């Protein structure tokens, strides 16, 4: 009898362990998602908004340290910062709560567009955000939300090839260097795992739109990517730069700012935007329609748009910010170390802005599944 109990106890302990483990996995994957599970731990329960306290959800490690305390001290408005690891993560939470639970959420432009179409994004009251004038004029023309009517851009950038200049036989210039790698690079290439960026190189190489909804075009891109798969190390959204540093990979598809994490560790790592063109992504701040603290939310955005705040953002993330006043204050040394910070807004605007795919999203997902199965 004793014996049985001890086995039962062990099994129960184990089951407890598994349950805990399952929960952990859940957070990490909602956080990592198909964009690869980051080691970030996201707050999974959406806090309920209460009067005077702003509930903000931003990507983990995407908020400069002093930003929130500075805002709280100056305005007396308390901020509860929740974290998500991916757009998909926060969209899933908003889907579950029908667009409530937060005052301000940080999402990429195409998701801001979706939030607006769902009726969950509040109209931005420009009169309450005077610092909007710190933005580059180009930041008012982003196709997912011209005039920043329901979102305000926080950072922006593009996607390209991040590579080890000492390992590649020649400097990459085209998406084809990634899609059809030179013999020296075979098996030493990674691609981003999230649907939009997984498809981007092939679509651009074929001369199609990054927002294509044409099934024929998508299938052509699929065929190209399936051919590439034999030469591919992995689909990776989170650790591609460390694969470059370790030498596991020679060249990887990367967001400009994330390539900098590699550059910071190894100055033989370089970044290039392929000649066929790429995407223009923007990470934005959206005030939710359900928010009961919209004035405070606008005040928060206004604070983020201050030149000093913007400078803190770039110093931390080494992404470009559409905040002209902030960009002008940057340390020239930083720009020298991270060449992406030298990309002018006019150049950025030549890239194609990502849009919500609407009814074509399920087709995209099916095609990506075909590639990864």
């Amino acid at each position: 009898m004793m014996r049985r109990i001890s086995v039962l106890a062990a099994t129960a302990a184990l089951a407890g362990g598994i349950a805990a483990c399952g929960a952990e996995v859940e957070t990490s994957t909602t956080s990592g998602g198909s964009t690869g599970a980051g080691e970030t731990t996201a707050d999974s329960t959406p806090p309920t908004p209460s009067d005077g306290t702003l509930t903000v959800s931003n990507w983990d490690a995407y908020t400069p340290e002093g930003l929130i305390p500075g805002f709280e001290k100056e305005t007396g408005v308390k901020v509860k910062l929740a974290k998500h690891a991916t757009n998909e993560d926060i969209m899933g939470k908003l889907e579950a709560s029908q667009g409530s639970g937060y005052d301000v959420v940080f999402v990429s432009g195409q998701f801001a567009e979706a939030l607006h179409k769902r009726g969950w994004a509040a109209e931005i009251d420009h009169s309450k955000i005077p610092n909007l004038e710190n933005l580059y004029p180009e930041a008012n023309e982003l196709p997912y939300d011209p005039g920043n009517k329901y979102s305000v851009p926080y950072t922006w950038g593009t996607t390209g090839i991040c590579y080890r200049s000492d390992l590649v036989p020649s400097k990459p210039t085209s998406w084809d260097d990634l899609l059809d790698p030179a013999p020296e690079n075979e098996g030493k290439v990674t691609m981003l795992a999230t649907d939009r960026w997984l498809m981007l190189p092939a679509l651009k190489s074929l001369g199609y739109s990054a927002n294509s909804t044409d099934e024929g075009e998508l299938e052509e891109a699929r065929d190209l990517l399936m051919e590439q798969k034999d030469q591919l190390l992995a689909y990776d959204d989170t650790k591609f730069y460390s694969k470059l540093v370790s030498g596991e990979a020679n060249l990887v598809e990367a967001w400009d700012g994330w390539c900098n994490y590699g550059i910071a560790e190894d100055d033989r790592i370089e970044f290039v935007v392929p000649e066929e063109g790429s995407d223009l992504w923007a990470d934005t701040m959206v005030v939710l329609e359900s928010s009961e603290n919209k004035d405070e939310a606008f005040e928060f955005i206004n604070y983020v748009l201050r030149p000093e705040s913007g400078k803190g953002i770039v110093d931390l993330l080494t992404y470009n910010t559409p905040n002209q006043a902030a960009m002008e204050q940057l340390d020239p040394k930083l720009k020298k170390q991270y060449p992406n910070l030298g990309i002018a807004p006019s150049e950025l605007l030549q890239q194609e802005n990502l849009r919500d795919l609407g009814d074509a999203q399920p087709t995209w997902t099916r095609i990506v599944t075909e590639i990864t199965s």
Partner: protein
Amino acid sequence: MRSARSSLARRGLLLGPALTWWAVLLAVPVALILAYSLFRRGTYGGVVYDLNLENFERIVDPIYLKVLWFSVRVSLEATAAALLIGYPAAWFIATRPKRWRTVLLVLVVLPFWTSLLIRTYAWMVLLNDQGLINEALTGIGLVDAPVKLLYNEFSIVLGLVYGYLPLMILPLYAAIERLSPELREAATDLGASPIRSFLTVTLPLTRSGVAAGCLFVFVPSLGNFIVPDLLGGGRQSMVGNLIQTQFLEARDWPFGATVALAVIALMAIVLWIQARAVARDREEGLADA
């Protein structure tokens, strides 16, 4: 009459918590999944509540069946490997002196104190081309170029076996431990070779443990999505990835629910087969030892 009523009340009292648990955490969620699968995605995500069976037409697409088949295959491979490793391990533990058994069992369970995610990352450090194993192999000159250990089916199976091996060992241990040594001695005395006595005496008598262990490994393997993501390098989706992608990336909850339903149905069939086997054993008077 009074006693009948009180016995009913007592039954209700005893069963109440379990029934509530079952209803809230199993019946209602499954009913919700079923309900979602009958609707469709809106243009910008969300659910449009018009009843239709479109999702069930979509799911018979060969591409999803391929993902499902790959998941089943990988899970079966992981289960078989876990059984081959777990049986001797359980045997070893069960035949140690009593005071050692608890220590060894605790050691088996110990890895569960760390998150599976972190342990999976650790495997990436070990297995990659520049990783510890390949450094050692090339260092001692056993191989010239790094062996591909990561981002393939091998590494997915390895990750699943590693993750779920304790779930195999514990039920096997329970089954082996209550086996009386006299039975094997009798078989030997009657002239059976060790292999024969294992196959005709030990294995049949521990069948319930084998079945439970296999089930405990197969079921979570089938639903796992971080191992194929990390150790598989995202190259081969399993059905867990498919469901996750539908809910998050595609924001297509109705179709995600349909895929989830298919997995639940598959699991139900596996459990039913197992329950049948147990019932048959019991009739033969084997399982109820």
